[in-house]
């Protein structure tokens, strides 16, 4: 479990530019859950996940990963706790640098101290998880790949670290429709088949409605909503406060005049057919 206790993050402290990016935030994220984080640009989403992954320290408050305080003085313990978190940044393909796909994916695992046999097996496994054929892609240069393929290589590099908790910051931004769709399918598969704990930052309420079992809403660094996507999307007050829209299908049903709590396309189609069938 990941636990945040009264966490605040202040940038440029004690200067005229002081800004509170995260304001007294407390929450717990359970193992095996699929949590989405939504909020405006500047709401604190990225700051939050950077703190969870140990990249920046909170100004005050505590963060625990499996009950280990990330700020513990015991360096081995702190390192082991941080290694449980895998972070996929926005546009992660910009960080590919090795000559071949295989070397790039293996890089982090080797740094974590895996021997050759273990590294190779992890590279193979993570490539299959993101839908890249090992033999076909291992010797290709990342530059020869399409945008969607490059992004999958970057994600495979993180998966090869076998993180217990996987954070993805807008993993589909800039992808074409087919690459977007397969990326979402693979994330969903990771969650269902490998039981990975997923934390997903997304601007797409449609994707959140389909994938996540929990939605955390941030606004100006504060937690303003926390519940199932259906509960949050049914709460106009939270959505207005955070400036978020409901999924497109929910908006469509409202415009048609159908009273329904549907948030996914399948549910929406059923709701329309039910109403139309009755007449």
């Amino acid at each position, binding site marked *: 479990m990941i636990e945040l206790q009264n966490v605040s993050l202040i940038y440029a402290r004690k200067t005229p530019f002081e800004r509170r990016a995260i304001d007294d935030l407390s929450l717990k994220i359970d193992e095996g859950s699929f949590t989405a984080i939504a909020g405006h*640009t500047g709401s604190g989403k990225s700051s939050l996940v950077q703190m969870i992954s140990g990249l920046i320290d909170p100004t005050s408050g505590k963060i625990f990963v499996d009950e280990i305080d990330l700020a513990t003085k015991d360096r081995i313990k702190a390192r082991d706790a941080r290694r449980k978190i895998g972070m996929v940044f926005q546009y992660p393909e910009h960080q590919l640098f090795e000559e071949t796909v295989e070397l790039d994916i293996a890089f982090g695992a080797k740094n974590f101290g895996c021997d050759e046999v273990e590294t190779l097996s992890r590279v193979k496994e993570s490539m299959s998880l993101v839908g890249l054929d090992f033999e076909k892609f291992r010797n290709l240069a990342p530059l020869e790949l*399409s945008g969607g393929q490059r992004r999958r290589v970057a994600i495979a590099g993180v998966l090869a670290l076998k993180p217990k908790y996987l954070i993805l910051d807008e993993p589909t931004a*800039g992808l*074409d429709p087919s690459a977007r769709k397969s990326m979402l399918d693979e994330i969903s598969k990771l969650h269902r088949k490998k039981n990975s704990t997923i934390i997903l930052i997304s601007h797409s309420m449609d994707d959140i409605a389909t994938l996540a079992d929990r939605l955390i809403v941030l606004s100006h660094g504060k937690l303003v909503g926390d519940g199932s996507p259906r509960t949050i999307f049914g709460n106009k007050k939270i959505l207005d406060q955070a400036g978020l829209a409901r999924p*497109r299908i929910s908006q469509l049903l409202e415009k048609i005049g159908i009273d329904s709590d549907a948030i996914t*396309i399948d549910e929406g189609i059923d709701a329309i057919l039910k109403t*139309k069938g009755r007449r």
Partner: protein
Amino acid sequence: MISVENVSFDYVDVDGNSKSALKNISLEIHDGEFFAILGTNGSGKSTLAKLFNALLIPTSGKILVDGIDTKLEDELWKIRQRVGMVFQNPDNQIIAAIVEDDVAFGCENLGIDPLEIRRRVDESLESVKMLEFKNFAPHKLSGGQKQRVAIAGVLAMKTRAIVFDEPTAMLDPIGRSEVLETIRKLNSQGITVILITHFMEETITADRILILNRGEIARIETPREIFSDATSIRNFGLELPFAVEIANRLRKKIKIPRNILTESELVEALKI
């Protein structure tokens, strides 16, 4: 306004092999048109965009902007004054420390009279609804606001056509709708718009859509024609706009009018 005649473009890949990005493309973009370009990553969209204002020169064939061949180096500024470009990442195209300086930059390069530049900068910022931010530092702006500043910079040069290469890809939903609204408004004022995007919804108000597939023209048709063929849309790695997708799924079970494209058409058809 822009005519593309039998254009091919080859590039050299990392191993030194010649690869073809565009094959024998011919098309005409009309004055005042809203022309959208769709295709998967690697289909040649961005290459074609860069050919429109001579950032790239065709390997064979030619591109004429108001009759001027983009190959002619002496005419380069005439072409860039006619066809402007807005890219995906707002942070890569803003260069000045103050919004209005950034908007003025292109004009200054053209050697325009300072009083005239002043007028154009204000007018352009007004047009993208950013006038109140003219003394701001660009890094204090949101992504959508930065993109609108980039658009104002192009407008100030009085270009008649603007090529937008995935201008909303890095923006959040609010930024995306701000930019799209700006693009539509400029087009309604007579500016030719060429929009490259991965978002199908952004193309449904276009006059025509070009689908590129592996460097070749797969289709050039109106949005209604393009999206009425669900199978080929999927084969090209694209998707249907939301309302079309829903209408198609409903049509299997209940009676829905054919050729629905927009959400309001769908609402109208289902209204209770």
